[in-house]
C-alpha cells in the first residue's frame, strides 16, 4: 500500500540536440523498472504549473538508475522550456515509469519496422536497443537536416531517414521512405504525430501486419484517474465500459487494430 510516490529526480546532464529539441539524463528510481515505450510524468518547480508533463523515455540505464528524456520545447514560458533551462545538479519531481510500453516479445524472429516521427522519434531509440528480432529496420522522419539521435540509431540497426524538406534521405515522411526503399516487414512499432500513425495503421491493415502504435493526448493525472486522455477503441473497453481507453494507463502503446484514430 502506498508503495509508489512522486520522487525527486536529479538532472545529470542537459544538451540541445536540434532546434527546440533537448536531451536530459536524470537520476531516478523510475529507471529501475522502466521499459521501452513507457513515459514519466515530469513536474516543473513552478507552482503555477500544476500538471505533470508526460515525457517519453528515450534511453534507460537500469544499473545506474538513470533515464534519458529527449523532448521538444513547446513554446515560451511553457513547462518544457523550464526543463530546458535546468542544469546538472538541479532537481525536479517525477513519477514513473508510467503506462505500457512496446511488447518486445512480439519481435522474436520477425522483420520489424521501428518507426518514429518528429518528437515521436526518441522512444524508438530504447526500443531499438532492446529489441531482439530477425531484421531491425529503423525508419525515422524529421522536418529537416536536424536528424537528432541518428548516430545512436545507426549503432542499433539499419536506418532509413525521411525529411520533409528532402535535405536528408527520402523527401517526405516515413511512409515515403518505406516505398522509396521498397522495404517490407511483418511487425511494426511506431510513435509519432497522428497523421503518421493513421497512415501506418492503414498500411498495416492493408498488408495484414501486426502493428503497435504509441498514442499521445493531453493528460492531467497520468495515472488513469482523470479520464482526460482517452482514445476511441474498436471494442468496448474493459475498464471504461464504453469505447474509450485511457492513453496514460491502458496505453500509450496500443495494438493499432484495437484503436480508432
Amino acid at each position, binding site marked *: *500500500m502506498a508503495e509508489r510516490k512522486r520522487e525527486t529526480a536529479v538532472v545529470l546532464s542537459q544538451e540541445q540536440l536540434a532546434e527546440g529539441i533537448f536531451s536530459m539524463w536524470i537520476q531516478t528510481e523510475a529507471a529501475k523498472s522502466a521499459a521501452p515505450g513507457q513515459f514519466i510524468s515530469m513536474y516543473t518547480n513552478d507552482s503555477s504549473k500544476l500538471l505533470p508533463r508526460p515525457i517519453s523515455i528515450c534511453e534507460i540505464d537500469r544499473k545506474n538508475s538513470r533515464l534519458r528524456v529527449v523532448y521538444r520545447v513547446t513554446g515560451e514560458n511553457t513547462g518544457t522550456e523550464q526543463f530546458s533551462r535546468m542544469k546538472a545538479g538541479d532537481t525536479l519531481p517525477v513519477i514513473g515509469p508510467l503506462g505500457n510500453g512496446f511488447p518486445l516479445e512480439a519481435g522474436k524472429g520477425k522483420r520489424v519496422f521501428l518507426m518514429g516521427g518528429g518528437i515521436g522519434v526518441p522512444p524508438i531509440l530504447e526500443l531499438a536497443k532492446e529489441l531482439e528480432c530477425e531484421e531491425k529496420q529503423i525508419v525515422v522522419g524529421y522536418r529537416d537536416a536536424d536528424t537528432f539521435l541518428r548516430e545512436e540509431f545507426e549503432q542499433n540497426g539499419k536506418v532509413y531517414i525521411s525529411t520533409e524538406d528532402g535535405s536528408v534521405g527520402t523527401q517526405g515522411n516515413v511512409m515515403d521512405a518505406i516505398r522509396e526503399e521498397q522495404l517490407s516487414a511483418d511487425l511494426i512499432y511506431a510513435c509519432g504525430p497522428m497523421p503518421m500513425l493513421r497512415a501506418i495503421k492503414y498500411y498495416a491493415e492493408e498488408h495484414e501486419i501486426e502493428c503497435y502504435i504509441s498514442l499521445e493526448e493531453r493528460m492531467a*493525472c497520468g495515472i488513469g484517474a482523470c479520464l482526460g486522455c482517452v482514445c476511441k477503441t474498436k471494442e468496448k473497453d474493459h475498464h471504461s465500459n464504453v469505447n474509450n481507453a485511457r492513453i496514460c494507463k491502458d496505453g500509450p502503446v496500443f495494438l493499432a487494430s484495437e484503436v480508432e484514430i
Partner: protein
Amino acid sequence: MDMRVNIAGVEWKNPVTVASGTFGSGAEFEAFVDLNRLGAVTTKGVANIPWEGNPTPRVAEVASGMMNAVGLQNPGIDLFCKRDIPFLRKYDTKIIVNVCGRSEEDYCEVVERLADEDVDMLEINISCPNVKEGGIAFGQNPVAAEQITKAVKRYAKQPVIMKLSPNVTDIAEMARAVEAGGADAVSLINTLTGMKIDIHRRQFVLANRTGGVSGPAIHPIAVRMVYQVAHAVKVPIIGMGGIANATDAIEMLLAGASAVSVGTVNFHNPAVTMEIVDGIQAYMKRYGFEHISDMVGIV
C-alpha cells in the same frame, strides 16, 4: 485530539475526502495513498447507463489550475456496483458515491439502485458545466434544485449531499433551496466555467470549447462561497475548490466547512491528501483544538 467529524449522521475518521472526478474510485491512487487514512473517498460520478463523455482534448492547464471537459464519462451503475464498491470496501474509509444524470428519472434510478448497496453517502452532481443536458440545468435554478433534491430524497436510503455550482448569482439561495428540498448536506464548489484559446492555431483548446476551471486559482472564490453558505443553511458543508495543502483546508474549515475535499492537486501530488490530514492534526496541536468541530466556522 479528535479528528472525527460527523456529516449528516455519518462519522468520518477525519475531515478529508477527495473531490469527485479527481480520484476515480480510488484504484488508481491505491499505490500512492493509503486509502485507510482518508475520512471518505468520493467517487467519480456514475450514471444509470455508461456515458462516453466528450471528445478530446478534454483537459488543459491554466495558471495555478486546470480546465476539464471530460463530460462525465462513466461505466454506468451496474459495473460500478460490481467492481468499485467491493474495491473500496476493502478499506476503512467511508464511501461517497457521486451521482450524475441527464434527467430527474436518471438521478432517481441511480439513487434507487444504490439504496441497498453498501455505501455511506450520496453526492448528487447538479453542477457539472460540461454536459449539455441535466447536470447544470438543475444547479442554476433554485426551483429545479429543490425539486431534484426532493425527488432523490424519496429514493435515497443514505444521506444526500447536494453538490453546488459556483456558476450562479447567489450560491446561498441555491443552498437554501436544496436544504428546503431535504438535502442532508451540501458540497461546494464545483468548477467555474472557463475558456482557453490557442492563439497560434486560433482555435479552442478544449474540444468542448468551454470547461470547468479548478485548482488553487479558484480557492479564494470557494472560501468566500463556503462562508456565504455557512451563514445561509444549517446542514453541514463539505468545502472544496483548489485546496492544495493543510493551510487551504484549514481555511475552509474556519470559513464554515465541516469537512473538505481535495481535487485537482491530487494530479500535482498524488499523496497530498495524507499530507493534509497530517497538517490539520499539527495545526490542532499547535493551537489547542480538541475537536475538528471546534474550528468549524469560527471566523
